[in-house]
């Protein structure tokens, strides 16, 4: 009986730990604009929630996902400057103010946690550079570093990145959209089937290839940014 064909069991345990909802990076505070979409009655049931979540996942795949993959590869090469490049490029590319704030807050929390988990010079240097604002310290880059340091390959990283985005939206949905746990789990289950296709594309992209065309999401995020309602940060 083959019990560990792809991952060693420690690495698999790391994957479970980093993607657990109790992993303290603050994902619970963000809704990625869902709160406004719900208020505007654009997302109001399982069908519209599924479409909204799919757009969020796709948007993240070709920006955050690309940066995470590049950071992962750079860590394995021991190329700190390439990690910093991915970090800076992602912030240049993030057009939404609240999205930038989310990525930096979660990234910094992840970096602080990594410094406790890994005894690694790159992790230490990255955290120090975040503190003195030499690098922005984004969450996807933190994921790239942590997954590489934890012995997980970039496919596992990309799956975790997509799971994180989808789960963040669906968790928020349970609090502001009229959907059940059964429906959100079905959406997560179904959207997981798209991850491989998105990875095939994202894994071939250079940092300059990062792209996003989600104007309706952008406008919803803006409505939230300028609005007074606040259950979530965005």
């Amino acid at each position, binding site marked *: 009986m083959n019990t560990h064909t792809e991952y060693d069991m420690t690495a698999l345990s790391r994957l479970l730990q980093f993607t657990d909802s109790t992993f303290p990076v603050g994902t619970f505070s963000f809704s990625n604009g869902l709160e406004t979409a719900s208020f*505007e*009655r*654009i*997302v109001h049931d399982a069908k*519209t929630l599924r*479409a*909204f979540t*799919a*757009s*969020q996942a*796709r*948007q993240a795949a070709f920006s955050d996902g690309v940066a995470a993959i590049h950071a992962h590869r750079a860590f394995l090469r021991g190329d700190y400057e390439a990690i910093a490049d991915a970090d*800076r*490029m992602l*912030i*240049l*590319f*993030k*057009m*939404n*103010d*609240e999205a*930038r704030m989310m990525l930096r807050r979660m990234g910094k929390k992840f970096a602080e946690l990594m410094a406790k988990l890994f005894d690694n010079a790159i992790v230490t240097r990255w955290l120090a550079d975040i503190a003195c604002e030499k690098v922005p310290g984004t969450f996807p880059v933190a994921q790239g570093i942590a997954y590489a340091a934890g012995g997980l390959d970039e496919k596992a990283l990309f799956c975790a990145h997509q799971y994180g985005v989808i789960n963040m939206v669906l968790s928020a949905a349970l609090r502001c959209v009229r959907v059940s746990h059964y429906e959100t789990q079905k959406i997560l289950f179904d959207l997981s089937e798209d991850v491989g296709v998105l990875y095939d594309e994202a894994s*071939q*992209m*250079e940092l*300059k*290839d*990062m*792209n*996003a*065309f*989600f*104007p*309706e*999401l*952008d*406008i*919803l*995020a*803006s*409505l939230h*940014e*300028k609005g007074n309602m606040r259950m979530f940060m965005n």
Partner: protein
Amino acid sequence: MIKTDKFKTSSVPEVDFSTAREMRPYLREPEQMYVGAPGKHGYLRLGFELDAEGKSILRDLDRRVPLIAQQELYFDEEMPQMPCLYILSSGGPNVDGDRYQQDITVRKNAFAWISTGAATKLAEMRYNYSGMIQNIVLEEGAYLEFMPEPIYPCRHTRFISDTRICVDKTATLFYSEIYMGGRKYYKDGELFEYDILSVCSHGERPDGEPLFREKFVIDPNVIPVRQLGIMGDFDVFANVIVMTPKEHADRIYEATGVFMDSEKKLACGITHLPNDAGLLFKVLGMEPGPVKKLVRDFCSRVRLEVKGHPVPPEFPWR
């Protein structure tokens, strides 16, 4: 493949996107006139500056067919001292294998308004693509409103652009683009039937400090354009970049209302660009008229903040 020997005989800067991964399927040499042939390789260089009397004038003009720059006119009733210039193309729509470059400089404390004489049509393409490079440079205290008419991508068109914006921290640029879903009322309707639109705009300071990079690649054959979150039910999309000092940006941001009106099917949003570079304003709508009006109203807000004057009402024939 592209006959680069022919392409490089041109006397104007080379416009080549063959290394862009999204254009790889579209690199065949057209059966008709080759890529970048005379008449298919437009170039425009515009330089605005203050003359000895302090009047903002078009000092530099260099052009290659099919691009035409009309005589600058001073018709803006709210800013009669501002040169207003229309860019035209004698070739009609952008066709297969067209290349364009537009270099626009507004020197210290000068100001200008630029638009196009009519909508830009991107014709059907079978072999190659149409590409455009823009370099926009604003020196200290300069001010530019760049507000072209909408772009209409027809069935099977392929278009890529790269716009480099270099703006001094004291200057202000208003840069808008309006993309139609297609020829909505042509025959049975033609919406999102193009092959690809790839649009990249990136801002930097004169010392080379990068400020932001926005890129969108729309390939309706691959991405679900009508999905909620992308275009949804909307047909028209406008993207406006405003690079301006932070104090201006903060006041414009506060003064700009955002909304999503499901009855009028019109929506707009605003956010801050990274690195305090300015603002990004987006509009979605069903027809070009209401979208153009929102863009123009927003431009008026920017001009009022920076120059102390509103934008006058649009000409009734535009």
